[in-house]
Structures are given as C-alpha cells and as structure tokens.
C-alpha cells in the first residue's frame, strides 16, 4: 500500500504517513497510561488525566521530573545519548558482520562453512536476549574479572572502558535473532539478484554485476535494518537493565516500577523520543524503497 505513493510529491506523503502514525500512537499512549493504577491520582477522572497528558505532549513543556528532580529535557538528552549510542553502534556492528558473511554464503552456497553458519546462527538466534546478556556478564566476571556496568566506564582502565562499551553490543546483536534475520534477508536478496534475467544479460556481454549487487545489498540492508528498529529497541531496553546502562529503557522501568506518583511527564517524553526515532527510521525505509526503485513511480503494480 505504501510504495504506491510515488511521484514528485511522494516523499511529502511518506512524511505525512509517519507524522500521522506518530501522533496517533502518542495520543493512544497518553490514553492508555490513564489506566495505570496510582494511589495519588484517585481524585482525578480519566478524561481529566488524558487531557492533562495531551497538553503536556502538545506543548512539549515537560518541566521538572518528579522522579529524578532534574529538568526532563536534560534527563532525556543524557539518557537519550546513551541509548542512541547503543542503537547506532549495534546497527554498525550488524552491518559489519552480516554484509561480508552473506556475500560469502551467497557466493559459495554449498560450502560446509556456509551450511554450518546458517545452522549456528539459527540456534543462537533462538536464545533470548536476557539469557545472552546474563551469560556475557557471567563470562566477563569469571574470565575478565570485571562486572561490565556503565559506571565502571568513568573510572575503569582503558581495557575496562572498551569492555563496558562492547559487551552490551554483543548481547543486543546475538540475542533475539536480529542478526540471523538480517543475515537471511541479505542472503535471499543476493541470490534473487544473481538469478535475475537482466543480470544474466550483463554477464553475457562481459559486464560486471558487482555494482548492481552492491546497490541491491545497500537497499536491502537499509530496508531490513530500519524495519527492525522497534524490535532492536525492545532488545536494547533489556540490555540496558541487565548491564545497568542508564538509558531510556532504564528510566522506563523505573517509572513503571513506581506504584504511586508516577512521573507521567517523563514517561511521555521518553516514549515520544523512542517513537520519534522509530518513525524516522520508518520514513527512511519508505524513502529508500522509493528512491532505489524509481521505476515504481510509473508501475501499475504495487
């Protein structure tokens, strides 16, 4: 349905699609959090709460956080950077890992290594991210002798600094099968390109198909990674809590753990930040599909 919107004003339509989806989700979220039991708010009715939260959302003046005391924008910035660090580095790591690997397995498919790789990744990807994170911590305690938590980063040695930064990334990437699913999509994409009749035509005239392969891989990489962002963020929230990494996930849990005087303004702010990130990646995804397949502008089919 989406990539039918092609043509000059297409990207405006895509933008509209994302903005509307963002607003709709946020409004729904504001409505849903009025259901959270809170001993302090018994006097206010749900509609009052809902309008209160909507005002906070639309005017964006979150004020001070009742949970941590500092201004919400500062908390958002500080925690946001930490979470963004995890998101962006894990994406970089995924790209570095899956692109060469899928190129290898797609080219020599029946090689024992590629069969082994597919099997190993299939099994590892079904281990939940929580278990992977805890195993990594157990190993780092017993082998490296350090407990990889964020505060160690500030006063630890260089080696400890590196460990604190990289170990959570391993958990994010291996856990919950993100690596395997992106590896699988890339592999299929390469095989699909190589079997296209026009690729045979290029080979038959002695041309090289690598630039088409690279183009296909970049498109498929961008589309599959941006499509998996909300899945990735779920994993990152778990990793933040297991590695005591004070990012947005950490704050979310603190708020949901409270049973009274919840910091609703901070909750809305954090949720808005996360959804904004998800929607931008969704927009990038639709935009890449449109940009990479210009012929779709004039195609009758979807």
């Amino acid at each position, binding site marked *: 349905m989406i990539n039918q919107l092609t043509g000059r004003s297409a990207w405006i339509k895509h933008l509209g699609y994302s903005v509307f989806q963002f607003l709709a989700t946020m409004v729904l979220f504001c409505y849903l959090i009025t259901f959270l039991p809170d001993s302090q708010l018994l006097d206010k009715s749900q509609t009052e709460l809902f309008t209160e939260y909507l005002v906070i959302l639309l005017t964006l003046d979150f004020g001070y956080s009742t949970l941590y005391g500092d201004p919400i924008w500062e908390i958002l910035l500080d925690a946001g950077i930490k979470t963004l660090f995890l998101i962006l580095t894990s994406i970089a790591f995924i790209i570095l890992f899956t692109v060469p690997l899928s190129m290898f397995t797609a080219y020599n498919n029946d090689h024992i290594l590629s069969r082994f790789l597919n099997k190993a990744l299939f099994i590892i990807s079904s281990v939940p991210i929580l278990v992977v994170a805890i195993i990594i911590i157990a190993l780092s305690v017993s082998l490296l002798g350090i407990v990889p938590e964020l505060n160690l980063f500030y006063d630890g040695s260089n080696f400890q600094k590196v460990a604190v930064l990289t170990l959570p990334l391993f958990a994010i990437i291996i856990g919950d099968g993100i690596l395997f699913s992106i590896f699988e999509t890339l592999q299929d994409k390469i095989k699909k390109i190589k079997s*296209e*009749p*026009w690729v*045979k*035509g*290029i*080979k*038959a*005239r*002695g*041309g*090289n198909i690598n630039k*088409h392969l690279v183009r296909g891989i970049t498109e498929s990489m961008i589309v599959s990674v941006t499509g998996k962002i909300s899945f990735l963020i779920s994993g990152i929230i778990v990793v933040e809590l297991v590695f005591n990494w004070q990012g947005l996930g950490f704050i979310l849990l603190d708020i949901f753990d409270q049973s009274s005087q919840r910091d609703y303004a901070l909750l809305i702010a954090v949720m808005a930040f996360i959804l904004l990130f998800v929607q931008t990646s969704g927009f990038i995804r639709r935009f890449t599909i449109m940009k*990479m*397949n*210009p*012929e779709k502008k*004039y*195609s009758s089919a979807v």
Partner: protein
Amino acid sequence: MSTKIEIKDLNVGFHSDGQTKQVLHQVSLIVPENKKIGIIGESGSGKTQTVLSILGLISGEPGVISGKIKYRDNFILDTSANSKKQWKRIYGEKTQLLRGHEISIIFQDAKASLIPYRTIEEQAIETWKDLNGNQSRLEIIENARSLLEEMNLSDPERVLRSYPNQLSGGESQRAYIMLALLGSPSLLIADEPTSSLDRENADNLLNIIKKLCSDKKISLLLISHDLRDVIEHTDQIYVLFDGHVLEQFSPKNRTPTHPYTKFLMSMVDGELIKELKADPDSDNSVTNLVQNGNMNEKYACPYYKFCSLSRTLSTKEQQKCKNEKPSLEMFSDNNKSACWHDK
C-alpha cells in the same frame, strides 16, 4: 567462404543429484560469415547449452567435457590440444574477450532482460562502459537513437528516457536489440526471442533482426523451439533433440527427411492434427504417439523411443536403430540427417 563460428564434436555434462548427466553429445555446427543459421530444439534438447558454450558461460562440473570451437580462424576451445587446466584457461580468456565485443546475445523475454531501475539511455551508457568503449556520452546516445530509428520506432527520444516498465512490448524488444547491437558485434545470438509472442509479433520481430543483421553484416544464430521461426528466417537449420544433432538442412532447397523433423513439419502445417481430427484413435499417423521400447532405457538412436518410422520397419532394421548410433557424417552434401532408414 570463411566461417564465423565452428563447433566440432562438443560434449557437455552436469552433475545432478549424484550422477553426471551428459547434455550435449558430439554436437557440430558451422555459422558461416554473414549467414543466418537456425537451431530448432524443444526444452531439454541442449540448445541453450550450445549457446552458453560459445560464450564460455558453461558453469558447474564437469561443464565442457571435450570438443573444439573455432572463432573466425583461431581456436577458442580445443580440448585435445593441451592439458585440461590449460585449455580451460585459454577458453576462459578468449571467450572473455569475445563476450559483448564480437558476440552479443539477446534472451527470451526482452522486458525482463532490461535493468528495471535504469532508463534505456543509462543502460546504453552502462553497456558501452562495460565494453570500455571510448565514445563520449553524446555519441553513445546518438548511436543508440540511430539504431532505434533503423528499427522504425516512432519516438526514440521518449523510449531512451523511460524505464523498461513504461515501454510497450514492441518498444522494449527494440530497445533490447539496440543494446545488443550497440557494441557492433560480428555475431548475434538470439536465444528464443519469440517464445512469448504470438505469430504476427514474432514474425515482425524476426524481420527487424534479419534486416539489421544483413544491413550491418552481422551473422545471426537464431535459436527457437518453433519451427516456423527458423524455416522462414534462416539459411541453414540444425535440429537438436536430447543433446544430439538429428538433422542439418537448408529450408529453401530441400524438405527434411528425418522422422523427428518431419513430425515437427507436420505439426506446423497441421497435417497431423487433421489426421488426428479425422480419427483420434488412428495409429498410422506420422508419429504414433505410443512409446517404443521402455521409458528409462537408453538406445543408440536418441529419437528411437518416439520414432514412428522405425515402427513400420522390420525387426532387423529396428535392431540397427537400437544399437548403432546414426551420425551426420554419413553424407557428403550440406543436407545431412542422422537416421539409417530415412533415405
């Protein structure tokens, strides 16, 4: 008259679930200079492998087993000359040089063989870069436009600027042929260009190809599974069946004698269908559609299982069909057919 391409006793095979299946058996073929040669063969007859062997694109093990291929007057493949490693290397290098420059090929479905996300103009430039030609962009586009005009295309400008899915069937065919002829090859191979077209469109596509080839002195190798394509548009026809060349004849001065080719002719001019219409259960038709011998046994003559002629012969003659392999070399003149009894 010098020959463009000559294939001598080519054998090609593939590994498929365990055993090696030979796909081409002693295939020989000559494409003389500036002539139009046709290969007729149904699915699984090995016609595509013959084309791929000329281009050196046979992949998989063991691929080319033995045989010689000569281009103009030097061998690009000669398995008897030196060790396997050596002739494979020479074969690879030589075909690499020929591909695109000297020999270019058009495949079955024009629209699917064009790069979907590039305009025809961009594809022309990319083709030219691949052939590391030295012309400038403008010259290439000019060259492309003139080729399109030669194929009486009404609005070449629009075609050049549009994407493949914006073109009609005819336009995408002409664009595809233009790309193939952009490198001014000396041999054009057309691998079943008409298989998804109805009779009328097929004829005018082949006319375009024929006209261009004769204007530009390009020899043509036309491969099709429909006899009508090759009968009307080529000078010499090779009939391929199950990897063997069963007959070689020129359509103008001689009617084919091999039972398989006669069967194909009877299907084209409808004579067999009339017979079937008259009496569906008749078994004296050109091909009695029942099987000779049993299904999975290998006989010397590849066509024995379906051959209606052998059914009318005495058992002694049938023995010959079963055990001795008929070959083309039995005849001197140009029209040969691999059958003991069809003379």
